[in-house]
């Protein structure tokens, strides 16, 4: 029996269970950091710290849990286009809001 044409449909080799536990641990660790940082009352930088940690966490979920690591460039490009457009949306809104 040959299953040759199935092989091309394989997204990637099966990922081991262990790596997902490490990913989860990293996410829990980052949550602990963000909660602790909020308790320190860092003032104006607290928003930047919280958003930076949230972005790192989201990237980990996208890259490892959502298998973006194993997808081809088209998927990654899609995400970059989305981030780009959202950036334009936020940027243009604030050029208005901040200078009124």
């Amino acid at each position, binding site marked *: 029996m040959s299953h040759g044409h*199935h092989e091309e449909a394989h997204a990637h080799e099966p990922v081991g269970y262990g790596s997902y536990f490490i990913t989860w641990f990293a*996410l829990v660790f980052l949550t602990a950091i963000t909660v602790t940082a*909020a308790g320190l009352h860092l003032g104006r930088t607290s928003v930047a710290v919280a958003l930076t940690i949230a972005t790192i966490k989201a990237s980990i979920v996208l890259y490892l849990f959502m298998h973006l690591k194993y997808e081809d460039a088209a998927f990654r490009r899609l995400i970059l286009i989305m981030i780009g457009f959202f950036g334009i949306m936020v940027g243009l809104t604030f050029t208005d809001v901040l200078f009124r």
Partner: protein
Amino acid sequence: MSIPAHAHGAAHGDSVALHVHKDYRGSKFAIWLFLITEVLLFGGMFLLYSVYRAKYPTDFHMAAEELNTLLGTINTLVLLTSSLTMALSIAATHHGNRKLALWMLAVTILCACAFLVIKYFEWSAKFHHGIYPGSAHLAAFPRGEILFFGLYFTMAGVHGIHVLVGAVLLTVMFIRVLGQPAGKVSFVAGHGLGNAEGGNVAIVDHDGNILWKGEPIDSSIQRIDVKTKYWPVKSRFKIEDFNQLENSGLYWHIVDIVWIFLFPLFYLIT
């Protein structure tokens, strides 16, 4: 990428007869496109949040104090864990471990329910204190605090609906995985069957006893089909078996990502 669905196999000389080829990469791409519209839906609300936050920084600080950080943190951990079990469930299908895939999927659904139950208690307490959209008590608050709670109830509410939809979707997936698919393996003339001429098909049990023996195979036999109730094993793994589960998983992870941003922006910035 866009290969039209067509039956191939026997006609192509492949051993698997009438295998309907579907565009799995295309379906995954479509899910990603949908997820992007989801991100932009929440993105619009985050933009509104950031504009009002810039305008009323003190009011947002005061209002955020009202939210229960402990419950928010527990819900964050619940969703992160559900993301882990979702990924483990898909990995288990890759490894051909159906039992683990079902267990992990069940834990994911339980986490989704736990999130909603915690949210229920959290919101009940808020409502009890007179903090809910359109309440007279809330109307007496400073303008920025009214905006904060308006955004909080809208965004956490829309997110909660997504969790509910996710729980239903994953339950459907659980039922699908439970009713495992039937498969068919075919041996086609000229591809392994040629050598079988003169022989026959037999069903043999564990001890080597022949339970059933078919007619001798002659040149008129073109194909031998074996119908199976299969679950993918590592050596014979088909994308059909996990494609829908993986696509549902992608949706579930996006729900988690939205919460990853909601949590610090509403609960932690005090």
